[in-house]
């Protein structure tokens, strides 16, 4: 059973590499584009959405001949398969629930994905671990240029790229980061930090984007504006804000270690105790408990697993991954029990040096 955790390659955004990856779990650049002569997906008929899907995927093949990208039409997948891709962050939750032809074009590493017929006709994204902006942007920029030669984008000289929601119009750019900020939460500095970021044009959401709740001290931060600056300027200004939050978090962690080391250790090992012994674990509780474990690993107070192993586990306790991992259908009311079982197994195996994850 645990074998599948070992063999399934985790997506690059969970690889805990790149600058500041002890705090910034992942960075994502998203670019919204639309075709000039079609209605936006929500308003387009099923027939028109089919035409859009074909136009984009064919344009993409012409733009990238001999590429290794996979075109996945969500209309041909069942709900479990769609949700699996949402959990890997290759697609948004919205894309999974829409109907008609829509889907994802992604590279084999699952670092770059292009959603077709989500809120906009085209949404490029490049997702990787650690704090990165310009490198991700330059990749997306190139793919956008190539596709733009093949199909007609909706573009206006004054307004820029036109999107379904005016909040994305202009550059169509959104730069977002998944941050783990337990130090700021524990020292109660978090509200001030996020409020400050808000004033600097950076807004906050939960782990799975819009409408998702915040748990486990995981925050998704992104630029609020998409117009009035160049793409590189947005990358730089957002990065600067996130770097200052990283600083705050570092100082908060140092403060905790200097003034409340025992309390912190207690919190980490209590979390460990629950994870090892619980019979039922909701996702929210899992995130809250592993937040302490994650902090413990980063502060070298906890050595029963590495960040890589914890990230792998974090992906596999999500409902669809859990189903794949357990190789069976799990009824909705049994998910918490199965999750607890996997977590228990994960930690118990880690207590022996023979376990292959080490």
């Amino acid at each position, binding site marked *: 059973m645990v074998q599948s955790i070992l063999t399934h390659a985790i997506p690059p955004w969970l690889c805990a590499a790149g600058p500041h990856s002890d705090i910034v779990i992942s960075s994502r650049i998203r670019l919204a584009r*639309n075709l*000039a002569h*079609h*209605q*936006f997906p*929500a*308003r387009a008929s099923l027939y028109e959405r089919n035409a859009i899907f074909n136009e984009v995927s064919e344009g993409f093949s012409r733009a990238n001949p001999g590429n290794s990208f996979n075109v996945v039409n969500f209309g041909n997948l069942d709900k479990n398969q769609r949700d699996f891709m949402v959990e890997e962050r290759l697609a948004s939750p919205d894309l999974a629930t829409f109907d008609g032809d829509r889907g994802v074009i992604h590279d084999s590493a699952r670092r770059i994905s292009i959603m077709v017929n989500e*809120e906009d006709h085209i949404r490029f994204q490049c997702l990787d671990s650690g704090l990165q902006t310009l490198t991700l942007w330059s990749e997306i*920029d190139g793919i*956008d240029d190539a596709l*733009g*030669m093949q199909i*007609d*984008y*909706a*573009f*206006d*000289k*004054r*307004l*820029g*790229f*036109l999107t*379904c*929601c*005016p*909040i994305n*119009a*202009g*550059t169509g*750019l959104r730069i977002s980061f998944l941050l783990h900020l337990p130090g700021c939460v524990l020292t109660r500095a978090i509200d001030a930090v996020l409020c400050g970021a808000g004033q600097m044009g950076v807004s906050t959401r939960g782990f799975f984007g819009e409408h998702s709740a915040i748990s486990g001290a995981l925050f998704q931060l992104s630029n*609020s*504006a*998409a*117009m*009035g*600056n*160049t*793409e590189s*300027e*947005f990358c730089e200004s957002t990065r600067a804000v996130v770097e200052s939050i990283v600083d705050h978090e570092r100082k908060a962690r140092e403060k905790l270690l200097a003034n409340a080391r025992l309390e912190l250790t207690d919190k980490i090992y209590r979390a460990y105790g629950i994870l090892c012994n619980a019979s039922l674990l909701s996702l929210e509780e899992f995130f809250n408990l592993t937040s302490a474990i994650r902090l413990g690993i980063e502060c070298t107070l906890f050595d029963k697993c590495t960040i890589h192993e914890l990230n792998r586990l974090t992906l596999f306790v999500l409902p669809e991954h859990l189903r794949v991992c357990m190789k069976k259908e799990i009824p909705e009311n049994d998910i918490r029990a199965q999750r607890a079982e996997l977590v228990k197994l994960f930690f118990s195996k880690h207590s022996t040096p023979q376990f292959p994850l080490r």
Partner: protein
Amino acid sequence: MEMCEQCGKQAATVHLTRIANEGTKVSHFCQDCAASQGLSAQQDIQQDLRECRHCHMKFSEFAISGRLGCPACYLEFEKEIDAMFVQMHGAKNHKGKAYSEHSEGSLGTADIQSLTKELAEAVKREEFELAALIRDKIRQRSDHAKIDRT
């Protein structure tokens, strides 16, 4: 942050756009002053029956969902969207990447004055196909301006 134009004490969160014969007038009120005048955002939206000529999305639908129907909606509801841009982005002009294949843009929200200039230049260069396109654009835009005033 814009202040309420009536009391001048609180931040203006209600923005009323009145469309009358002489053009539009935008007023800004705080929640309390808006309520004291019996203003409810919902009411005004429902009375706005304009729709996009391309996709037939009604302005009232957009005001509720925040989502537009097609790229041409930007031209149809230009004034309102411009006001939203200032609130959302603090800007209403794109400064980033240009789409070089179509640097004219698919809508052309350039004003009539600059279009007329472009038209004259195109004629001078004897690029009549381009000139015809620009002429159509000017016509469309002046029609649009007329609709706005009725």
